[in-house]
């Protein structure tokens, strides 16, 4: 059975006192056990919202509307009571967020924040829990973990804080890790190292990974399969190498062209013109249609 199946997921979010927007429209994706999947797209594409919807971490306002299906090992979560979602978040899904400065509680010690993430049914004594905390901090690439656990987030550098977030995510020994732009807020040099740590953690624990990013390079090196999103829809999907080397959807092609224009010499910077964008949105052409088109031809 597929580990994670998302079927026609749609999310409406409030954007003001009286307005709403459909942030995610009929998105379908799947993740097998141990698989690494990337969701790539520009800001505003709905990739973050998708990731949060899978973990049930959308705002709790009653104006948020989610429809479709999210199934872990066949168990449906959309429409399920909040307790079920909490169970999933406590044991199955770990999430790594983007900006480690604001995503860590400034008034709580690092050790306490990691300890909170340990699953309660392990029934650890305080000493055992502390040892586990240090073990996970170490797995996340941090040193001097005993002293570190006693510190507060403000005392750490950006890269260290992101590693703490990684430790928080893996402390529950999850089956799936969702990483939402985990390195965007970091310096370039630190990015590489943190990504490497993420890579190693995922490999050693054997978890599945959903990596959300706008950075094609990040996704290229870390994922097996790729979903390309734009304006709330999945436009293209396939093995990562395939999609990046031989993109089928016009949007993906345009995206790659604009990225390459940044790195090629002597070529003008190219960005996707508004008329083309309009076409992508109004045509509603997405991955499903691509499959059918491919089969038809």
């Amino acid at each position: 059975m597929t580990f994670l199946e998302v079927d026609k997921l749609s999310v409406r979010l409030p954007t003001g006192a009286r307005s709403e927007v459909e942030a995610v429209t009929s998105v379908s994706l799947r993740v097998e056990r141990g698989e690494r999947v990337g969701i790539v797209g520009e800001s505003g594409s709905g990739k973050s919202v998708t990731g949060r919807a899978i973990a049930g971490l959308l705002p709790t306002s009653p104006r948020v509307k989610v429809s479709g299906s999210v199934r872990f090992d066949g168990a449906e979560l959309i429409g399920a009571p909040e307790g079920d979602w909490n169970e999933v978040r406590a044991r199955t899904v770990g999430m790594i967020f983007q900006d480690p400065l604001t995503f860590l509680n400034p008034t709580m010690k690092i050790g306490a924040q990691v300890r909170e993430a340990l699953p309660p049914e392990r029934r650890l004594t305080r000493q055992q829990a502390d040892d586990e905390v240090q073990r996970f901090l170490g797995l996340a690439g941090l040193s001097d973990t005993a002293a570190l656990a006693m510190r507060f987030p403000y005392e750490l550098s950006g890269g260290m804080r992101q590693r703490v977030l990684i430790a928080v995510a893996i402390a529950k020994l999850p089956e799936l890790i969702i990483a939402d732009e985990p390195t965007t807020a970091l310096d370039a040099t630190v990015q590489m190292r943190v990504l490497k740590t993420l890579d190693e953690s995922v490999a050693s624990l054997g978890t599945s990974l959903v990596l959300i990013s706008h950075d094609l390079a990040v996704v290229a090196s870390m994922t097996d399969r790729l979903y390309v999103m734009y304006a709330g829809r999945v436009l293209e999907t396939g093995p990562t190498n395939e999609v990046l080397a031989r993109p089928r959807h016009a949007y993906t092609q345009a995206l790659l062209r604009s990225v390459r224009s940044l790195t090629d010499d002597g070529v003008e910077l190219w960005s996707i013109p508004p008329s083309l964008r309009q076409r992508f949105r109004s045509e509603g052409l997405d991955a499903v249609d691509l499959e059918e088109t491919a089969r038809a031809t």
Partner: protein
Amino acid sequence: MRSAVLHYAKLLLSSVVLLLVVITILFLLLELAPGDPVQTLVGDIPVSDAFRAQITASFGLDKPLLERYLIYVGNVFTGNLGFSFGTDEPVIDLIFSRIGNTLALALPAFVISTTGAIILGSIAARTRKRWLDGLISGTAVAIFSIPNFWLGLMLIMLFSITLGWLPTQGKSSYGQSGIQLQYLILPVLTLASSELAFKTRIMRSSMIEALGGDYIDTARSKGLSPRRVLWQHGLPNALLPMVTVAGYSLGFIFAGSVLVERVFGWPGMGLLFIDAIERQNNMVVLGVVIVITVTILIVNILTDVVYGLVDPRLRARFARPVRSVA
């Protein structure tokens, strides 16, 4: 550690400077007041020549301006706040004999208003029931808009005169010394009310802010129960600004007792102040102002200390930052 010492040294220094500014302004007001300086200090009641001589000597009233100023400042810092006319009592003794009664009002009012505000503000921020939030917030604005002395009058009219449950004035029955509980209720309630309203609004804002923080997402992602998220993650962050607010509130409660003591005939520092104003016993007036100022300055320093202890970011400021290869 050194930066902590530096920080508090600066705080102490600026407090002393503020006190000096207050004293200077009071001195200038004295100068600006029409009439002869001794008269200003003792009011319109004729006084004995001996008393007049005592004042003149003590405050150097026959000396030039700058010397008078310096003597005045010196007097304040050595605790010589002058003498109350008529009784010839040193002002400072007079004040200290009454300050206890004011504290008996101020401290319970502070505790009630602060704890009440934390509870109500948290409920108002967290609840999904819009009507409950509206009720708490609306009531807070309403109470905040009531003049607290009028509230006192209304409470007296209701509970003392009409219902007869509680006494109308004073701190204890005739002939008894000390403070009796039933006399305490209405004044404390009156004093606490507008502070409670004000702080509830602030706590609500602060809690909304805290619950909108990104770290709440992280907490939820750990599968923690909503209750735990509220208490362990929301509340500590929401309480931080409240520490400062509570500190200022104590200072203002102290000063606000002036009106409440008048309404309830409560023999505290506030009533002393008002009586002195009415009788133009100006040395007492100035003395009270100085004591209030010093109290508020001390409270502000204490608030800063407490805040520094409570906010880890400030504790971290005084520690060496941890750096390692990330």
